[in-house]
């Protein structure tokens, strides 16, 4: 990029005697371990050294950087720290780059210069630094449970019991199942008419609940039409036949009263 602008600085650094740990980098030995733990690895340490010395990452002076890096590694070894192999691998890489830089460069074939031995290292440092910063930025984003909470309003599934749906057809099929089981059909001849009668039997029983006594005429709604009156009457007869109601009349032509038979009246 603007490597030319950085040149004086770089030149000065190249000119300086090597292997001098900057004073601000001095760490008391007992704190070295903690200090090194602050680094996420050799790339992180390298980045620190580069930033600390205000070097241009695109034109790294390999000699001083390598020297500084080796200082740290040597310090770690002296401390008998459990030195990660990654640090040693990086040291080897730095030394290799440094030595390649010292070799005479083949004359460039074109305007595109031959591969700089530092290129791969620079690419890795840039990518690492990008990711390091990205990690920071992600951490700065509002984060669920750290910076805010999701709402968790209670939805009580038990509050309303879900009930099965039943269709008339289900009942028909259930009945079919009963019939299949029974095999012999016996006397279950139920017809529509009979059903209506049974429905009215239920109606009548309900109306007579709680010991109520109805007059015969009260049982019929003349406006309901002849078929209904007939069905209602049949229902009454059926109830009487099954001893579910008592029909009483004290004398001829006096009112007829209907009440539940004893069995039915005890239950409200």
């Amino acid at each position: 990029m603007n490597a030319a602008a950085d040149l004086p600085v770089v030149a000065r650094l190249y000119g300086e005697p090597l292997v001098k740990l900057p004073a601000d980098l001095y760490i008391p030995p007992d704190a070295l371990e903690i200090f090194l733990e602050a680094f996420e690895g050799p790339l992180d340490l390298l980045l620190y050294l580069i930033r600390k010395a205000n070097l241009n990452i695109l034109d790294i002076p390999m000699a001083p950087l390598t020297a500084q890096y080796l200082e740290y590694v040597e310090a770690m070894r002296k401390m008998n720290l459990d030195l990660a192999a990654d640090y040693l691998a990086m040291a080897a890489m730095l030394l290799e780059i440094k030595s390649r830089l010292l070799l005479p460069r083949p004359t460039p074939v074109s305007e595109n210069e031959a591969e700089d031995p530092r290129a791969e290292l620079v690419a890795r440092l840039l990518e690492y630094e990008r990711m390091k910063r990205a990690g920071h930025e992600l951490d700065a984003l509002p984060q669920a449970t750290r910076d805010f909470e999701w709402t968790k309003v209670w939805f009580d599934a038990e509050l309303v019991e879900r009930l099965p749906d039943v269709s008339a057809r289900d009942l028909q099929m259930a009945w079919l199942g009963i019939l299949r089981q029974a095999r012999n059909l016996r006397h279950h001849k139920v017809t529509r008419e009979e059903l209506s009668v049974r429905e009215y039997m239920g109606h009548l029983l309900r109306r007579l609940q709680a010991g109520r006594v109805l007059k015969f005429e009260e049982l019929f709604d003349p406006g309901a039409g002849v078929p209904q009156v007939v069905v209602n009457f049949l229902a009454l007869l059926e109830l009487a036949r099954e001893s579910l109601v008592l029909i009483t009349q004290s004398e001829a032509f006096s009112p007829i009263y209907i009440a539940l038979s004893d069995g039915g009246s005890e239950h409200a």
Partner: protein
Amino acid sequence: MAEANTPDYKLVLEAALLSASEPLALADLKLLFEGTLDHAALVAALEQLQSDWSGRAVELVQLASGWRFRTRAEYQVYLDRLKPEKPPKYSRAVLETLAIIAYRQPVTRGDIEDVRGVAVSPGILKALEARGWIDTVGHRDTPGKPVLYATTRKFLDDLCLTSLAELPPLAELEKVIDTTHA
């Protein structure tokens, strides 16, 4: 900013209660304000909040273990649609019992057992009664005075029938059985 010295208590309470996964006791809620809200003021704020939410599909309720927001039962029907769960189904025993009561009413438990050939568990009749589909309409005047069951108006309504006569006829079924098992 909310860090002002006097927060809007109701807003903070609302946020805490809406985001809590458990009911919050008064002692918990007091922590929100580090003791700057006394008991009476806290309860007053909660009651105020409760009334703010009246008429919504979510309500603030006071339970044994504290306060919590919950969805109202009337809205369950909508919220259930979000859940892919299959609706529950009645067992064959329940359906057959219901069919027998529907087609042969009024019937006693003994009648049902005669038709099905097996004992009817009390749970079945209780479930149908709880649903409001059957009720007792009297007692048969026989030894033991057994209870008579019949279907209710709600049963007809829930099955979209106007009368029992609209139940599918059984005669055809019997013919089918006659021919297949002849």
